[in-house]
């Protein structure tokens, strides 16, 4: 099959693996931008979400954020970020900044919403018992609500991270690197081998990230929440 041949050809081409446009560079770029965006997104919304969740005010905001976030296409967010970066003059083409900003905007909503949902999932009786025993509001939040919110919270971070990895692929459309580069370049020169290579690389990365995160999720869930009578 022609496609398979092209693919094998691409794999065996040394230029794929070394030099400036090498696989390792692109993989690294892709991962670091995803990780950084997720972390920054987390830091931006986590404190506010904790607070809103604790005072039981946030659910409307959380729902609104999810709905709005879903209606705006990730490609659109990337494009707007690009527009802003170019206009502001930080340098648009070939730099990661527009990608980074877009990804932060993408990572924040799931983390925000799930943190609020997680905190609010704690039973009122448990919180009343905690307050009745003399825990300060801060202690109630940090020692009781937060640990118990872990499963939902981690789920939010996982959703955010995987979404970010997926959208980082589109970064190639703003002339950045990352693994999406293979796909876009492949389309341009009709090299099916390159296209396939890129698709497999990104696909595998996303799947590995998802699986790894499931493991992390399980690890940080307090033991007491996992047992069943």
């Amino acid at each position, binding site marked *: 099959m022609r496609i398979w041949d092209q693919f094998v050809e691409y794999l065996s081409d040394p230029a794929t693996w070394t030099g400036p446009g090498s696989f390792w560079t692109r993989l690294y770029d892709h991962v670091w931008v995803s990780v950084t965006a997720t972390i920054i997104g987390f830091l931006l919304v986590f404190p506010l979400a904790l607070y809103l969740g604790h005072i039981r005010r946030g659910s409307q905001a959380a729902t609104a954020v999810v709905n709005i976030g879903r*209606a705006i296409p*990730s490609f659109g967010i990337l494009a707007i970020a*690009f527009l802003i970066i170019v206009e502001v003059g930080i340098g648009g083409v070939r730099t990661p900044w527009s990608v980074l900003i877009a990804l932060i905007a993408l990572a924040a909503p799931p983390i925000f919403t799930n943190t609020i949902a997680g905190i609010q999932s704690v039973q009122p009786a448990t919180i009343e018992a905690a307050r009745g025993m003399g825990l300060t509001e801060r202690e109630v939040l940090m020692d009781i609500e937060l640990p118990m919110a872990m499963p939902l919270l981690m789920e939010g971070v996982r959703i955010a991270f995987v979404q970010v990895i997926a*959208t980082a692929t589109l970064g190639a*459309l703003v002339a950045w690197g990352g693994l999406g580069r293979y796909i876009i370049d492949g389309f341009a020169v009709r090299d099916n081998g390159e*296209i396939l290579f890129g*698709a497999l690389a990104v696909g595998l990365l996303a799947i590995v990230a998802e699986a790894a995160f499931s493991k992390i999720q399980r690890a940080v869930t307090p033991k007491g929440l996992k047992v069943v009578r």
Partner: protein
Amino acid sequence: MNLVLGQADQLIDWAWVERNMSQIIDRTWEHLTLTGVSVGIGLVLSIALTVVVLRWRWTYAAITGFTGLLYTIPSLALFALLVPFTGLSATTAIIALTSYTLLILIRNIVAGIDGVPAAVKEAADGMGYTPRARFWRMEVPLALPVIVAGIRIATVTTVGLVTVTAVIGLGGYGFFILRGLNTFFWTQLIVGVVLSVVLATILDLILIGLQRVLSPWARGKV
């Protein structure tokens, strides 16, 4: 306010919008058809798969695992995987877009059916409903709101993903976004983004309305 409008004037060349109105309308159709066909086929497939799941429960894990896998693969990658085989065509787009709807729809349909209170089913049985009548008269109507919620999510998500098909020559409004990016012509870019959001919101509202119509008993709640 004037400041914003003033800048909007700079960013958006309204003359361009007027000139290209017919293209905008064409792209609207493209966007709508790609969304509609994908969600439609996705719904049919999901209903079929749900029937399988309801009959043989153990398949649920495998089916959600597989559709989940499809969902995890980034859209651009999925298009890329299909292009060598189905080319730069609407077929490629629809196959990929449909795949993305499967996980959401199946999960929601199953959740809707499962969400019918056991007490209701038992009462229906006790009154003499046949299993089939119970399914169609009790379970399906009660499950509909959740199912429509799933269709809502799938639709809005698909509207967003259609923009990415610009890379394989389609794109609906995504066409304008890509063009705008490549030519640094902000008007096109903004028009593309804004129209996507508007379309997604309109469809969302229509479906919310549908959800409400189908569940008059839930109107008291938020």
